């Protein structure tokens, strides 16, 4: 469905995308992960024909992007990070305006608007001005506008920035639901938990380079060990700071939480003994697979994603 070969994009002497290869199949929810400035938004912009590139080829729906841009755009949609809508128009006026731009008229207009509204649960707000909607509702309207042409490919550029956890959850499940309709989604984010939650496949970009890509489970299985989170009933940061010096691979998360990386039974036994000696009762121990975050850190040697 999307095939990128040897893509190079540079401007003002800076390489934004360094000979990227990427393949995304139909019906896949694909995550593009990377810190700010990694090249995610540039890649999405290129895929939508909004930014030119210097080298490489891009095929979408089996068509060359540069030669068939208009036809490709008619079958895809771009949902920008910012709220690309009109605050002084109502929900329905916004939808009618953007449908009009795409020459969607008559019965098709009614169908498209109904589809966009129902997917995003905007029925109760259709007559409301966009300015009066909550942050989450505005985000859903932003997505609804992108659904008017019933696209086969949806490009989302960090759609959950600045919204509350509840709305974020709703938006993520909406995006996940596109899989049922066999739609392809390209989802950029620097929130790794979001990528883990909704994506089938992912690519990690760093400074314009593709550092890893593939099915998410495969990528995570690459690192064998698990980590464990130990929550304590009570403790102090000072006690924990002294304790981590005695056991390797232990990190202090907060005053009551420790993280044991690459845990094994020897390390765990040693930590439990140390906790007992310090008379620190354990509330619970959670074992977790290696997260995308730890994979990202190991691949890019960064301490944090938002660098």
């Amino acid at each position, binding site marked *: 469905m999307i095939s990128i070969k040897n893509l190079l994009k540079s*401007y003002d002497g800076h390489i934004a995308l360094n000979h990227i290869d990427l393949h995304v199949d139909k019906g896949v929810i694909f995550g593009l992960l990377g810190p700010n400035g990694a090249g995610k938004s*540039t890649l999405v*912009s290129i895929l*939508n*024909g*909004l*930014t*030119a590139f210097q080298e490489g080829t891009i095929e979408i729906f089996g068509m060359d992007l540069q030669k068939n841009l*208009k036809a490709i*755009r*008619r079958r895809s*949609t*771009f949902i*920008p*990070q*910012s*709220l*690309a*809508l*009109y605050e002084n128009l109502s929900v329905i006026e916004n939808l009618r305006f*953007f449908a009009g*731009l*795409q020459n969607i008229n008559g019965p098709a207009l009614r169908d498209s608007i109904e589809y966009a509204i129902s997917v995003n649960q905007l029925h109760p707000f259709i007559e409301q001005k966009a300015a009066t909607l909550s942050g989450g509702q505005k985000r859903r309207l932003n997505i609804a*506008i992108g659904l008017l*042409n019933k696209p086969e490919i949806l490009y989302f550029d960090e759609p959950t920035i600045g919204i509350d956890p509840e709305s974020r959850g709703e938006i993520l499940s909406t995006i996940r639901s596109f899989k049922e309709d066999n739609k392809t989604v390209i989802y950029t984010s620097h929130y790794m938990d979001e990528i883990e939650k909704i994506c089938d496949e992912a690519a990690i970009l760093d400074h314009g380079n593709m550092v890893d890509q593939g099915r998410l489970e495969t990528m995570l299985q690459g690192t064998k060990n698990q980590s464990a989170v130990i929550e304590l009933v009570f403790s102090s940061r000072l006690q924990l700071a002294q304790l981590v010096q005695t056991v390797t691979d232990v990190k202090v998360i907060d005053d009551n939480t420790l993280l044991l990386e690459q845990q094994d039974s020897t390390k765990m036994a040693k930590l439990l003994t140390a906790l007992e000696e310090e008379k620190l009762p354990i509330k619970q121990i959670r074992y977790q697979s290696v997260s995308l975050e730890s994979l990202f850190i190991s691949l890019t040697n960064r301490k944090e994603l938002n660098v």
Partner: protein
Amino acid sequence: MFKAMLIKEFILVMRDKHALAALFIMPSIFILIMSMALKDTFGSDRALLQYVLIDQDQTSMSREIARAFEESKILREYEETVADHEQLQRALNNELHFALTIPKGFTAQLAAENPSSLLHLDVASDIRQEALSLFQGELTSILMRLRMETMLKELKPLLGDRGDAPGKDFFSTDTRVQIHFNGMETGQIPTSTQQSVPSWIVFGMFFIIIPMSTVFINERKQNTLMRMHAMNISIPTLFAGKIIPYMIINQIQVCLMVAVGIFIVPLLGAEALTPGNSITGLFLVSMGLSIAAVGTSVLIAVSASTIEQATTIGGLVNILLGAIGGIMVPKFFMPPIMQSLANFSPMSWGLEGFLDIFLRGLGPKDVLLESLALTGFGTALLLLAWLVFDHKIKRGV
């Protein structure tokens, strides 16, 4: 605490380039332009008003009047030939301000109390009252001096050094000059409403720079324009979608301002506006002005990075074009170099077009040049805006 607040406020203002431009650069430029425009207006060494003198009397006295005119420091003889009535009308529609005809037999009756032969003064209809008064004052002074000399010559043998002081009417030009404003009926005079409304219509139309660029920049910053672009909307379509509504808004502005001049101004005790005889001519000029104003707005909108920048630049451009273009100061008050500069301001073209319709009673043919110039100017700016916007889109700015 208060000191900290003061320091913070100064730092913020000093770091705000647009505030600095609005506070310091704009007034400085404005002062420079206005000073240049008004330079020598009240000085005595600059000829402000252009005239032609048509001497049908051909006496030594009429030649004396011509010589006195030549010596006047505020009058300047019109350089082009004015051979017939048609040429005179054309000249009055352009740069000539006054045409004074000395009829046959005028100087013979110079000393008479109720002369039958009157001076005939043709006045360009866009001449403001201040300029007319200035000319009348100069004319009065010349006539008074010559009349005094004539009378003294006649009376000297009889009165010697004695004689009554002349009465008020003796000096007045009112009883000796018949004034006719070009393009108007005899006895009809242009009102301040007639002269000022066109200026404010032009000025008001260019104010669409502010709302138009604000909306445009908001759309750009919110990526709404990028979204439209991703929906296969081309730049010309995008521009057309903005230009047409704002041109309609401009036409509504013109209708509203003309209506205010016709219906509201008289309620406040001033003369009503008379809209001239050519709706087509009025439409041509206002459409040309609209294209020029919209072109300026779109260029500013695509070039500016922020709304603050656009409103500062927009306000500055509007005031400067107005100051240069004769909106705030009539062009004939300006020095020659500023008058030449005024010819580059689209506001000046628009103003001339409106004056042709409102004051000079002219029609579509006469405003075609101004309308085409305005349309060309606006189109050129729109094309430039297209190039700038296309470049920005390709760079992903």
